[in-house]
């Protein structure tokens, strides 16, 4: 008990943990009674049983949701790949008229958007949901229903977006939707892109929250940060990146949709807007996104390479450096997509320099892999073949990246096929190949069967050679001046032969994918069950059960090394016997252990929610709220929004943070743990914290927009424009501050055993938050947002604050109801602590918003 983690907050010096921790070697070595073990296994098995028949679709377990998620992402990838084939056919010969210019625009826009938003990012989430729990010996993700909700959102949003191409109304302004082309584009295409993908982005953030909490709080006892699997480090870094990268795009989407729907001129230069603002917001998302895609894929390599070398990874700390360093520096690169927009040269220099610097941490992990292979006893296998091919291709893409990061070279190559070649080399090498390697490597974990070695080799060599045949010539056609996104081109410019070669190569890639998909879908019928650890891996996922058992792990082990399977030959047998923690479920309910962040000390037993339809219903209503506005149907959208909120409240009320029956429970090995936690010990508190970090980033992007306009335009705010009513802004600020005080006070008096007073404070707080929302709205009623970007951006900030105040009031009322009906008590107060945390963030944001609305007009004019 020497290493209480202060990172966990003050409450973690744990007076409540009873019994012995850490366990002694004798305790772990003591054999289990076989009878008892069998009875426990039966109870666990019933608790974790997957529903059968049509109820199968109400599952929320990570093994089911992860598989659906991954397969759906692969389907979208195949569709986007078919679009690429059409694009290549059209470009095979000059002056081709296979598809029209308009359809061609839809095809390349949808190819890019679908590959990025419906495949690359979701595949990280889906694979992580699928394998992270087994990598860290957890039974499931901390919030399985949230994963299910995220999946259904992804499915609905994805079908909506990609389906639009079959109705000839797909977005067609390119995957980065530059205004004014995209804002002026007639038809619903741009709206489908904006609303459909915003919906999916929200699901991505939900997945990021869950994955971060999973990596930080659901590790097995004893798995300190210096011995956790490298994959978990990457998940942590990538989750953190999503929190800072996606929100600027969501803020941008909000502004963009306000312009499309209500003609608020954020990006219209004739009314004080600025198209470059969109480019900034998009690429602040867009460049980190490249690394959000790359890092988790390379994380798979970090798991495969030690297994192939049959030794621990060389340079564990160096790989952590590499992941964290890349995560940071990747946020300083976005302007290299905007080198030709006329920014000051010295600014271009900063981004050029950072783009060169990011190569260093990116390269370090590749050298660590090579070093591991050099000192190990390599047993080459199929996944390693894919990793090796991927690294070769990625390195070539990285080298052209170094070229493009040099601004004068980019001036020449910008928007040519050279860029197309570069980005496909990085994405295929950095993402597609490692992901396929991961599919081959982890398939024994998922289907309990191995995929075919022979078909795998065929598929590899077809895709590898096809890839180079397709994309290597694009470097040349690009340097010869062929621009991206042209639907056809005149002959005789030296481009003809290279385009024809590229088209042939594309079909070779397609053949390779066909073989891969055939094997993926049919290997279950062709092969026998695999041995448990077919590759000889050393990490916890290879303790999985063959055939499948739904409990994740039979018992949650006590871990003391990076490769426990190699270091402790008895581990699997003892896990199977139920020797370790939580080997039983007396009540036949789903549970897992939540541990501390740094040293993974056991903190409490977290109940895990089981199968339900409510996530599907909530996702359907949420989908309605996003999809109806595409067709300007605002009433149905509003109704769906309200129903979505009601559904989510029902879901939370019925199944989360209920007071437990007993305060402590036995988890085995002489340890008793609390069955409830609130505040910074609990997983829910961390989820709120992380969500609000993302929310604050989106808000910061709106505030950034105000100052961006001010910097870039001499007349911002324009002379003679109306300003927000200072008095009302001040009142709104005061009300928010008081509402925050009421919430904070309610938490304190509730803890000290005065729930009555807490209820009064919560009720008052809710009224104050609604008053704040009203005052802030009233303060901008004189502004006419259609006339200029200045009133428009201030009104957008008001909308943002109004929605957040209303949400804050809803949360206060939720706690009030909880306290009234006995869900929330002085001892079991997780909801109130989470809501207080929300209010810390909201109060700070509201004060900044009030300052922006009230003081900026005075200071900037």
């Amino acid at each position: 008990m020497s290493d209480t983690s202060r990172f966990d907050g003050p409450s973690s010096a744990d007076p409540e943990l009873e019994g012995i921790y850490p366990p002694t070697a004798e305790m772990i070595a003591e054999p289990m009674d076989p009878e008892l073990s069998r009875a426990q296994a039966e109870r666990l098995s019933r608790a974790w049983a997957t529903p059968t028949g049509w109820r199968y679709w109400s599952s929320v377990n990570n093994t089911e949701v992860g598989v659906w998620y991954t397969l759906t992402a692969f389907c979208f990838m195949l569709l986007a790949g078919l679009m690429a084939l059409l694009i290549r056919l059209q470009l095979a010969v000059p002056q081709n008229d296979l598809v029209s210019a308009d359809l061609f625009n839809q095809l390349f826009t949808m190819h890019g958007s679908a590959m990025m938003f419906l495949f690359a990012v979701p595949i990280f989430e889906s694979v992580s949901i699928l394998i992270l729990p087994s990598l860290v010996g957890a039974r499931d993700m901390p919030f399985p229903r949230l994963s299910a909700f995220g999946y259904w959102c992804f499915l609905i949003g994805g079908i909506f977006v990609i389906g639009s191409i079959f109705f000839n109304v797909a977005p067609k302004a390119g995957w980065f939707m530059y205004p004014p082309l995209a804002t002026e584009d007639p038809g619903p295409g741009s709206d489908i892109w904006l609303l459909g993908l915003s919906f999916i982005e929200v699901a991505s953030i939900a997945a990021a929250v869950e994955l971060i909490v999973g990596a930080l709080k659901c590790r097995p006892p004893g798995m300190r940060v210096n011995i956790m699997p490298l994959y978990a480090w990457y998940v942590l870094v990538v989750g953190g990146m999503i929190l800072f990268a996606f929100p600027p795009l969501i803020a941008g989407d909000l502004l963009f949709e306000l312009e499309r729907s209500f003609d608020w001129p954020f990006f219209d230069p004739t009314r004080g807007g600025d198209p470059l603002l969109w480019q900034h917001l998009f690429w602040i998302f867009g460049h980190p996104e490249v690394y959000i895609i790359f890092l988790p894929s390379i994380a798979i390599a970090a798991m495969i390479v030690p297994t192939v070398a049959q030794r621990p990874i060389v340079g564990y700390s160096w790989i952590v450096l590499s992941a964290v360093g890349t995560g940071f520096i990747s946020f300083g690169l976005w302007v290299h997509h905007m080198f030709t927009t006329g920014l000051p040269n010295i600014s271009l220099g900063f981004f050029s320099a950072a783009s060169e610097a990011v190569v260093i941490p990116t390269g370090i992990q590749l050298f660590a892999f090579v070093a591991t292979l050099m000192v190990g006893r390599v047993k080459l296998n199929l996944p390693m073949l894919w990793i090796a091919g991927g690294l070769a291709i990625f390195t070539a893409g990285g080298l052209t990246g170094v070229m493009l990061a040099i601004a004068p070279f980019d001036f020449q190559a910008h928007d040519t096929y050279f860029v197309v070649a570069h980005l496909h080399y990085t994405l295929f090498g950095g993402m597609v190949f490692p992901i396929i390697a991961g599919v081959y490597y982890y398939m024994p974990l998922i289907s309990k069967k191995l995929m075919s070695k022979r078909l795998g080799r065929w598929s590899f060599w077809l895709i590898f050679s096809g890839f180079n045949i397709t994309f290597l010539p694009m470097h040349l056609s690009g340097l010869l001046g062929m621009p991206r996104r042209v639907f056809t081109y005149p002959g005789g410019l030296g481009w003809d032969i290279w385009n024809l070669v590229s088209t042939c190569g594309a079909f070779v890639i397609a053949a390779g994918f066909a073989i891969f998909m055939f094997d993926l879908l049919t290997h279950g019928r062709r092969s026998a069950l695999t041995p448990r650890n077919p590759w000889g891996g050393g990490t916890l996922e290879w303790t999985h059960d063959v055939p499948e058992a739904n409990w994740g792990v039979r018992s949650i082990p006590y871990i003391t090394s990076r490769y426990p399977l190699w270091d402790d030959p008895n581990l699997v047998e003892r896990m199977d016997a139920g020797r370790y923690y939580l080997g039983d479920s007396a009540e036949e309910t789903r549970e897992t252990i939540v541990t501390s962040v740094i040293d993974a000390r056991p903190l409490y037993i977290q109940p895990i929610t089981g199968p339900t339809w409510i996530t599907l219903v909530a996702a359907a209503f949420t989908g309605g709220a996003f999809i109806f506005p595409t067709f300007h149907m605002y009433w149905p959208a509003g109704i769906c929004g309200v129903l979505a909120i009601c559904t989510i409240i029902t879901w939370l009320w019925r199944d989360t943070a209920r007071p437990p029956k007993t305060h402590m429970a036995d988890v085995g090995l002489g340890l008793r743990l609390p069955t409830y936690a609130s505040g910074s010990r609990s997983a829910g508190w961390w989820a709120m914290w992380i969500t609000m970090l993302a929310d604050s980033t989106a808000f910061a992007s709106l505030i950034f927009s105000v100052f961006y306009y001010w910097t870039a335009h001499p007349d911002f705010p324009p002379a003679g424009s109306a300003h927000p009513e200072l008095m009302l802004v001040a009142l709104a600020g005061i009300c928010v501050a008081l509402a925050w005080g009421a919430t904070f006070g309610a938490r304190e008096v509730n803890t000290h055993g005065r729930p009555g007073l807490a209820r009064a404070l919560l009720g008052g707080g809710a009224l104050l938050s609604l008053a704040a929302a009203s005052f802030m709205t009233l303060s901008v009623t004189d502004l006419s947002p259609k006339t200029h970007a200045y009133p428009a951006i201030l009104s957008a900030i008001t909308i943002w604050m109004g929605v957040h105040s209303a949400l804050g009031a809803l949360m206060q009322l939720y706690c009030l109801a909880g306290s009234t009906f006995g869900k929330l008590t002085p001892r079991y107060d997780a909801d109130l602590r989470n809501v207080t945390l929300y209010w810390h963030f909201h109060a700070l944001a509201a004060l900044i918003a009030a300052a922006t609305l009230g003081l900026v007009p005075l200071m900037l004019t």
Partner: protein
Amino acid sequence: MTDGKDAEKHEFREESESLWRIAFAPAIWAIHFVVCYAWVSLVCVKFGGDPAVMRVSLLAISAVALAAIAWLGWRAFRQWNVRDTGDFTNPEGEAEDRHEFLGHAAFLLAIISAIGVIYVSMPLIIIEGCR
């Protein structure tokens, strides 16, 4: 002897808060980057002004950032404590190895952040004006 042990125990416990700490040096890089970008925008786009003054003051800020990173790096190197223990990789599941591992990671991140700050400062030396 027991005193020494207790002191060590205390030390390994103290730093448990440091998952944030490994991100301090990269955060300094990020702040430095944003300050450079914002200042150049204000001088070159909004207000005008003497680019030479801007460059010298930003280079001074770079020097401060580098000094701060160097200090963090030195502390992290001490925490890694490789000269006393001879342990470069810290693979054991115990408090001491976790402590030293976090020192090692922070030390490496300080190096990469310093390289980042130097790279980003180079345009200030090479490019003379706004255009």
